């Protein structure tokens, strides 16, 4: 669907849902690059109501033919609703969810647009300077705050399963192992060995059940260039589970230019962990972190092989999927091999 047609259909959809709106039109629409898991558009919606003319900034997230991550938009919408307005978390307002394909040809949801801020490129994390420490403190405080959000009664709890504390790891590992085995275009000896290792050496039970963002990392938040994180985005992998999953994913070496000295490439490790503990109420456990950190590499491989499959099959020709299936897959395979090899007697 071309943007002009999309704009026209979206204006009609929005007018029917905005109380008292008339003469509704899309004044501007721009597709945002990089959102391969959903087609993401920034929209200026102009309309009139009883109080006069208005313009509202919106973000439209529409399902593509295939995506990096096979998720239900209903879950993403519920996760954003669960975090919006809580504990100073900079999360956009969830506005409309449409699971029917009639309106725009594919399911979609709509959020309020946060007007200030740009994403940081995880491959150029030094661009955060001179605000590395300020962003780092917010990064780990918000991460801890998400872990501390109430699960019971949340919108997300109504849409997704809540595992037992000692089953969080098993559920996630089974899911991503299946993704790898179902989608890999070639045998994955490193991933398979890692899956077996993680199964044989389970982590301690989760200290608490949390809302897990699922993709909390540099690249998925906005910052204003003046030291403030303005938005936490990309909740499509959100679920309920062990908060260590988010901590390990957020500090995966791929997202921080391979910076081993600073957590997430932002803060010295002790400071980062201290902030996360204070905000989450969890106690740092090195054994749990080690397991979830290795798991992060496996989860990443699950995403990358799925991307490669979609690209190879022609279901989605966004080059980011080819990049994911090649470069980032190779990076995470290398990380896993270099960490697991020495555990099995191979010299590093």
């Amino acid at each position, binding site marked *: 669907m071309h943007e002009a047609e999309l704009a026209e259909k979206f204006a009609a959809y929005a007018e029917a849902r905005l109380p008292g709106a008339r003469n509704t039109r899309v004044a501007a629409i*721009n*597709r945002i*690059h*990089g959102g391969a898991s959903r087609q993401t558009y920034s929209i200026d919606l102009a309309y009139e109501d009883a109080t006069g003319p208005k313009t509202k900034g919106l973000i439209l997230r529409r399902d593509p033919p295939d995506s990096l991550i096979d998720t239900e938009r209903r879950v993403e919408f519920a996760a954003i609703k669960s975090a919006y307005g809580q504990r100073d978390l900079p999360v956009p307002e969830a506005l409309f969810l449409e699971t029917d394909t009639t309106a725009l040809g594919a399911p979609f949801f709509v959020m309020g647009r946060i007007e200030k801020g740009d994403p940081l*490129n995880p*491959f150029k994390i030094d661009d955060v300077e001179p605000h590395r420490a300020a962003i780092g403190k917010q990064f780990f405080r918000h991460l801890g705050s998400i872990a501390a959000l109430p699960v019971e009664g949340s919108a997300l709890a109504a849409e997704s399963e809540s595992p037992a504390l000692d089953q969080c790891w098993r559920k996630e590992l089974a899911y991503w192992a299946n993704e790898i085995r179902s989608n890999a275009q*070639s*045998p994955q*000896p*490193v991933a*398979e*060995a890692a899956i*077996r290792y993680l199964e*044989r050496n389970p982590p301690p039970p989760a200290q608490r059940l949390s809302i897990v963002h699922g993709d909390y990392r540099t690249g998925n938040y906005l910052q204003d260039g003046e030291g403030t994180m303005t938005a936490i985005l990309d909740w499509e992998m959100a679920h309920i589970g062990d908060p260590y999953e988010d901590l390990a994913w957020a500090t995966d070496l791929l997202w921080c230019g391979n910076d081993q000295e600073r957590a997430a490439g932002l803060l010295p490790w002790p400071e980062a962990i201290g902030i996360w503990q204070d905000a989450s109420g969890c106690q740092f456990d090195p054994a749990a972190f080690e397991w979830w950190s290795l798991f992060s590499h496996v989860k990443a491989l699950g995403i990358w092989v799925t991307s490669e499959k979609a690209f190879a099959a022609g279901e989605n020709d*966004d*080059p*980011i999927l*080819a*990049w994911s299936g*090649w*470069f980032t897959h*190779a*990076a995470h*395979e*290398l990380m*896993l*091999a*270099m960490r*697991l*090899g020495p555990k*099995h*007697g*191979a*010299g*590093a």
Partner: protein
Amino acid sequence: MSDIGMILDRLGRKLVTEVAPKLEGDYSAGHAAMSGLMAVMAGEAWDSAADRLVNEIAGIRGLLALAGKTLSVPESTSVKLSELTAERNALAEQLISLQSELEASDDDAAKDLNAKIWMHLMATAMNRMPSPPDFPDAED
């Protein structure tokens, strides 16, 4: 015969440095930049692809032989990448099975062979890692 690696390299650099900037503001600018970046990487990988596969195949065949496994995967009759890849993949399936068997055993010989498999996997992972060319804003 033309130098395929060189052609991919030049095409990629053209996309990144000339085409993508002209598309700035359009969604396709990101596609052009990413495509150019990967074309340069593909040019580099082109040169070493057969060598890498031949080494992976020889490594796995050696490990399976150490385990006393009957080598049922026929050797490729050419060095076409597609044939080498098929041979490597068939051998890799056997390597996964072998490693799984070894992990179930406590004896030193099994642990020693498993360590050798990990050495192979580490070396393979290092050789597969592409080096991304340094283009300003290319991977945005």
